[in-house]
């Protein structure tokens, strides 16, 4: 679209700064709404610049350059824009850092939560196992328990002891039935007879009214190899070595 004919002359004058008064106001108003005329004005400014070129020739004196440099040095911008731009970045860096930290900590807390859940499960399982183990122990040691020794028919019950020993865990369980009653201040003592060395105390017990007794997990030296087990009658607090002859002995070991 070409500029409006009626304005063309005035546009040239406006570019030259030579348009005044009402004509100028009218043209400026027109320019607000007319891109074609604005383009023409820009072209005219360009033409004026060409006119500026026509003057070229004299170079400015050296002193002018020095004067400018001095003035510039006295008004340093001190890279305000640069500093501003660096400082302007700080909140972005901080924000980015926060995002990273937040993500990092969130992941950490996720992992922790998982770990806690795992531990809770483990703990529940362990508690269940513990319960079961307690049950076993309670049953074995309960004074209310009914203990029955089964023998072949027509056979009178005999004193009987059963040892279950796991060497690797130094774990021992002993069950006795039909044990003869003992005088006061006396007790039976169980002995672990090792393959080498002296007999090792493995628990002291007195049978109940039915002649039953149990020994559960006595303190034993670790991983002793057992040849057999034996029972003697000792003072009620027990002895560190047998003081009377063996009354019961492990058979068929």
């Amino acid at each position, binding site marked *: 679209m070409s500029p409006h004919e009626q304005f063309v002359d005035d546009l040239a004058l406006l570019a030259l700064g030579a348009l005044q008064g009402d004509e100028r106001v009218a043209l400026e108003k027109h320019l607000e709404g007319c891109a074609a005329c604005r383009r023409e004005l820009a072209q005219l400014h360009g*033409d004026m610049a060409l006119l500026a*070129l026509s003057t070229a020739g004299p170079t400015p*004196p050296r002193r002018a350059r020095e004067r400018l440099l001095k003035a510039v040095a006295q008004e340093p911008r001190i*890279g305000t824009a640069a500093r501003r*731009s660096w400082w302007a970045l700080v909140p972005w860096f901080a924000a980015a850092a926060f995002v990273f930290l937040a993500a990092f900590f969130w992941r950490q807390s996720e992992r922790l939560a998982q770990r806690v859940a795992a531990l809770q499960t483990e703990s529940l399982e362990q508690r269940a196992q513990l319960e079961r183990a307690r049950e076993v122990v309670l049953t074995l040691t309960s004074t209310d328990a009914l203990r029955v020794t089964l023998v072949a028919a027509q056979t009178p019950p005999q004193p009987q002891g059963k040892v279950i020993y796991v060497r690797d865990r130094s774990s021992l369980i002993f069950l006795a039935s039909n044990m003869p009653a003992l005088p006061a201040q006396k007790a039976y003592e169980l002995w672990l007879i090792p393959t080498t060395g002296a007999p090792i105390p493995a628990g002291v017990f007195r049978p109940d009214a039915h002649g039953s007794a149990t020994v559960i997990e006595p303190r034993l030296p670790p991983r002793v190899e057992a040849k057999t087990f034996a029972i003697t009658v000792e003072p009620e607090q027990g002895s560190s070595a047998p003081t009377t002859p063996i009354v019961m002995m492990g058979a068929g070991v």
Partner: protein
Amino acid sequence: MSAAKSKGGATDVSLLWAMRSGDESAMVKLYDRYSSIVYAVALRVLGDTGAAEDVLQEVFMQLWRNPGVFDSSRGNLGAWLGVISRNRAIDSLRRRRPETDVADVVISVEPDMAGEAERARAMEKVRGALGSMPAAQRSALEMAYFEGLTHTEIADKTGEPLGTIKTRIRSGLQALRKAF
């Protein structure tokens, strides 16, 4: 807009950006590149070296204080500086307050003014165009441009009708444009 770049030099735009960050050497480079245009125009208008130097100083200090006033949408820097210089000089000549808001001036011009060679070529063309213009046309143009006379004043001075003066000025500028 052509990327004004003299041989082996940074572009005008990159120098302006450097100036924004307070880079004084960028200011110096732009000065060395365009000071002759600014000075020459001011001198032609004012006819006085001292006054022309003042205009030179003002124009570049303004650029230093506010490099953002010129952005690439305004055309090329050399042409823009030429126009600013001429306007400042006219204002000084006529003891007027600055009429044009510098920020509003938009220039559309063909030749790239940063390079020495291009500038010399452009100078030749302009001088050629001016030389082949009818005298009355050239003189009207020069009166308006370098003396800052309004068309009314030119009409009074030459005794020609107002409309004639307007047309002469307009066709004079067109003739220049055609040369490119």
